[in-house]
């Protein structure tokens, strides 16, 4: 049964190939069936494997399925193989199950769009790449999935390609992550040179025995790999692509933010945590960058008026929390928050998509209002997601995972914990700013009803968001350790529980944030903020704090300037100069051949004289 693991990435890949080849020829309904069922089957298989796993874990808590030899040369070899261990098992469940519901939702959301089959082909390829990324046993194979994810996000963000802006957003997402990936590639090259292979367990064992903790090379390699992770996971300073990536269809955003792509960086660090432990400086850097990201995302989230951008910044912030956990070595807590975030973020995006579906793709929250009664399902789903995101005590999975994570951070570094608490407060403010603005107050008109392909994903994800957190609870709520026990063989045991004052503050912060959001809603501040033209500082926050302008000035403009200067190929111009010189000389000499005898005689005289002089004086 474990051997069937290859089918998990292969099924969506087959779906993508099938849709790519048949694309235009098959009816839309069949395209949706192929697209959704391939991921659905993969999800079913992943669940089956997981159940078998929990019933009887294989020896060593890892199962390797070697597939074929990719490259074997005297000094380098790479084998394509799939590795199931608790980490990859959790991730394939998250990716395939949530991925399936997003496919299902898409089938209704994208109905009637041009390129319906193409959309599902990309979506399937996206899921397949992500599954390959997390199952790969070799860093080079992982890199295949890694870049595949990047390309799919590029294709999907730019899915509505007629809009020039979508194309720019798509290119930006690919290029920013590509820059990060090149750093990662250089890190991979160093590992390949040092160890002759990129098989993850060999590399990790080799690194531990070859490099003492805190030495130079693990810091360089971990740092380079981290840059790749920061790019994919949209962390400071490589976060700029994420808000623009909202140009894609909303279910795509759900896929990018929940099941695929942005979690890749977290996964990378967890997978290679043995290497990162050899580089404490890099871990400190991760924590510091994460704290910055949490604050930046929360501040930017406060001033967005596009509902998808609110959610985009919230993703950046939540991934920041995961990196905060990674920075203090709380791998299991980061993984728990990853899984929990995947559920509620998919729920948030899909319910926001469900809202804008009924409002002619309106995304400005200030153009909405009072939708609580008009769209009860979307409201309930969005509310559950928002409660989870804000980490309101006991209600949803976000509370349990954030509590678990911040408890671990507190144990390591109270200052970082303080930043986390501040972030949690601001998160409560900005997400409930959106909730109150969209669903309360004066109402706007909507029409139409949801089909089952929208209702089912929203319901299931909402229930999952409510229930998932109970897998890992703090001591005063039963002290369940199911999730960390699953991960324990790969990542070590759970962190100790935080003391009650710490937990209490952690619970109070989001409530205070929601209270503030409510108070500002009641006195109409949010509406006024939406109506007023933003001041300089607000615009600075809205635009993501000037990173775009900075990169434009130091990267984009010099590059375009170079392109303009070199456009006509200066080297070619040099050769053309030779040509022109030859032609010019030819003309001059031809002018001399003009039939004027006196001139010829003059030249002959001069020549003879020169010769005589040369002979006499030499």
């Amino acid at each position: 049964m474990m051997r069937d693991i290859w089918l998990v990435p292969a099924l969506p890949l087959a779906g993508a190939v099938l849709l790519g080849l048949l694309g235009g020829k098959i009816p839309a309904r069949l395209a949706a069936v192929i697209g959704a069922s391939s991921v659905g089957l993969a999800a079913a298989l992943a669940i089956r494997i997981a159940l078998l796993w929990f019933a009887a874990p294989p020896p060593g808590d890892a199962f390797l399925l070697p597939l074929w030899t990719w490259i074997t040369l005297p000094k380098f070899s790479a084998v394509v193989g799939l590795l199931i261990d608790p980490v990859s098992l959790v991730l394939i469940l998250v990716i395939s199950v949530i991925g399936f519901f997003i496919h299902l939702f898409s089938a209704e959301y994208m109905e009637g769009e041009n390129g319906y089959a193409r959309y599902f082909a990309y979506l399937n390829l996206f899921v397949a790449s992500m599954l390959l990324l997390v199952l790969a046993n070799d860093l080079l194979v992982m890199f295949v999935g890694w870049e595949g994810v990047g390309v799919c996000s590029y294709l999907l963000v730019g899915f509505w390609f007629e809009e020039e802006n979508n194309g720019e957003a798509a290119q930006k997402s690919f290029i920013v992550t590509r820059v990060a990936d090149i750093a990662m590639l250089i890190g991979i090259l160093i590992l390949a040179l040092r160890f002759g292979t990129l098989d993850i367990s060999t590399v990790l064992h080799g690194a531990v025995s070859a490099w003492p903790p805190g030495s130079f090379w693990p810091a360089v390699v971990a740092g380079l790999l981290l840059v790749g992770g920061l790019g994919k996971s949209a962390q400071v300073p490589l976060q700029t692509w994420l808000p623009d990536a909202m140009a894609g269809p909303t279910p795509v955003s759900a896929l990018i933010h929940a099941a695929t792509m942005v979690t890749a960086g977290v996964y990378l660090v967890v997978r290679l945590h043995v290497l990162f432990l050899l580089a404490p400086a890099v871990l400190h850097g991760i924590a510091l960058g994460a704290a910055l990201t949490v604050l930046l995302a929360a501040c930017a989230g406060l001033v967005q008026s596009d509902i998808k951008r609110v959610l985009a910044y919230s993703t950046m912030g939540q991934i920041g929390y995961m990196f905060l956990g990674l920075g203090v070595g709380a791998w299991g807590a980061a993984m728990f928050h990853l899984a929990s975030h995947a559920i509620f973020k998919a729920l948030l995006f899909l319910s926001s998509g469900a809202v804008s579906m009924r409002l002619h793709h309106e995304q400005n929250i200030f153009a909405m209002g009072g939708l609580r009664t008009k769209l009860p399902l979307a409201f309930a789903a969005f509310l559950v997601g928002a409660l989870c995101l804000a980490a309101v005590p006991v209600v949803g999975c976000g509370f349990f995972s954030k509590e678990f994570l911040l408890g671990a951070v507190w144990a390591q570094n109270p200052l970082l914990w303080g930043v986390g608490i501040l972030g949690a407060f601001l998160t409560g403010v900005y997400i409930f700013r959106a909730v109150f603005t969209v669903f309360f107050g004066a109402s706007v008109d909507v029409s139409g009803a949801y089909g089952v392909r929208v209702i089912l994903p929203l319901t299931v994800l909402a229930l999952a968001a409510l229930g998932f957190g109970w897998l890992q609870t703090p001591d005063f709520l039963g002290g369940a350790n199911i999730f960390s026990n699953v991960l324990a063989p790969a990542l070590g045991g759970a962190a100790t529980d935080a003391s009650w004052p710490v937990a209490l503050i952690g619970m109070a912060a989001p409530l205070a944030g929601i209270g503030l959001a409510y108070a500002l809603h009641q006195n109409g501040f949010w509406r006024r903020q939406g109506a007023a033209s933003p001041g300089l500082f607000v615009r600075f926050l809205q635009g993501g704090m000037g990173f775009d302008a900075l990169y434009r000035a130091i990267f984009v403009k010099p590059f375009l300037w170079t392109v303009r200067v070199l456009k006509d190929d200066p080297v070619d111009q040099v050769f053309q100069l030779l040509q022109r010189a030859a032609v010019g000389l030819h003309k001059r000499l031809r002018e001399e051949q003009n039939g004027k005898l006196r001139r010829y005689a003059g030249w002959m005289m001069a020549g003879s004289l020169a010769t005589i002089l040369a002979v006499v004086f030499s």
Partner: protein
Amino acid sequence: MSLCLLLAIPLLGGCLAWPADRLHPHLPRIISLLALAATLAVALPMLHGTSFWLADFSVPWIPAFGMSFHLGLDGMSWLLTVLTIVLGMFSIVVSWRENVEKIGFFHANLMWSLAGTIGVFLALDLFLFFYFWELMLVPMVFIIAIWGHEDRRIAAIKFFLFTQGSGLLILIGILGLAFLHQRATGVLTFGYFALLGHEPGGAAGFLIMLGLFIAFVVKLAAFPAHVWLPVTHTQAPTAGSVILASILLKTGAYGLLRFVVPLFPTASHTLAPIALWLGVASIFYGAVLAYGQNDFKRLIAYTSISHMGFVLIGVFVCNALAWQGVVFLLIAHGVSTGALFIIVGALQQRLHTRELSRMGGLWGDLPKLSSFGAFFVLAAMGLPGLGNFVGEFLILRGAYGAAPLITILAAIGLVPAALYSLIAIQRAFHGPVREARAIADFGWRENAMMLALAAAIIWLGVYPQPVLDVAAPSISAMGVTP
């Protein structure tokens, strides 16, 4: 003997194709295709056994000057020969529906150029090599000059001057090498094996090496010797562009691998730092210029310069991993760039323009063409899982131990590669539709070609080991460090 068939069949096919258009306009095409299929049928079974030289053929040619008609086939030349034959077939099929003037003579030139290229890959006598080098290039001048696009005259002149210039350098180089060898040993010979291991020392040896190096770098079209390439590739007819980019460029790399480094190990080692920096310059220069082009075909031509920068680096770090990467990248680049030229040719045929500013939004009108176009652009960009990535990775991996700084710069060069790739997709296939068009998408002939090439590039990327195994013995025999 079958080695002679590899040359004789395409030569004869060309001679038959020339007059055949008087009988039927399609006949030259059929003759050429059959001839190449026959050549392929001869070439494919030659890959057998484990011996390093798969085949060898030698008869005296001009004994007085020590020249012999010596052909040999090892794994590397087998791969490049098969690439030549297969892409030659594509270049014939690609213009199947086009209305070509003097179609017999066109195909004769194609076939002769292909025969010359195969000869270049097989020759183990330096003078014979020079002979095939010329045979390869002269018909190509005709193809550009007669059947090229609007600026074909300039393109043909440029191509002629640069290739003849490099041909002259090769001639001087091999004559000098033979004479120096004669002075040292008393034997006048142009035989590859006789000259191997007798590197002429001193300034003369270095100059000869330099001459050959320049000649091959011109053919490879690395910076700054690339200036003939953009205009030539742009102005040539599609079939010519495919052959130029997919096959003829590779003879430059082959010359460096087969002759320059093995015959002059010391001198080329001295030159290596400069060659490596030229490689880096090519990568960036080609990429930046590709980004700025408005002519789609010219854009692809500049990307070749960028890719050949990787090849140059791989050759001059002189280790087996990088050389495996070089051979692999030559093949993958042949497939991906060949496909791209076919696609741009198809676009020009439909839109009557190559200008990107007049394209945009083609995905809506031409979904198949655009999907294949985006696929091959991404393949050429070095997307992992496709062929080019394996070549580039092996080059970088091989180069990293020898020249870390160069390797890091080359890897950074993959960023501008992404830039020009995406801008090409954006300007041609994505973006708003600028003008209404009523044009047909790919038909079954074009789809079949594209699917075959796409399958090849996927296979190369996913399961490259067979190709690496074929090339391995020749590379380890060429005396580079493993």
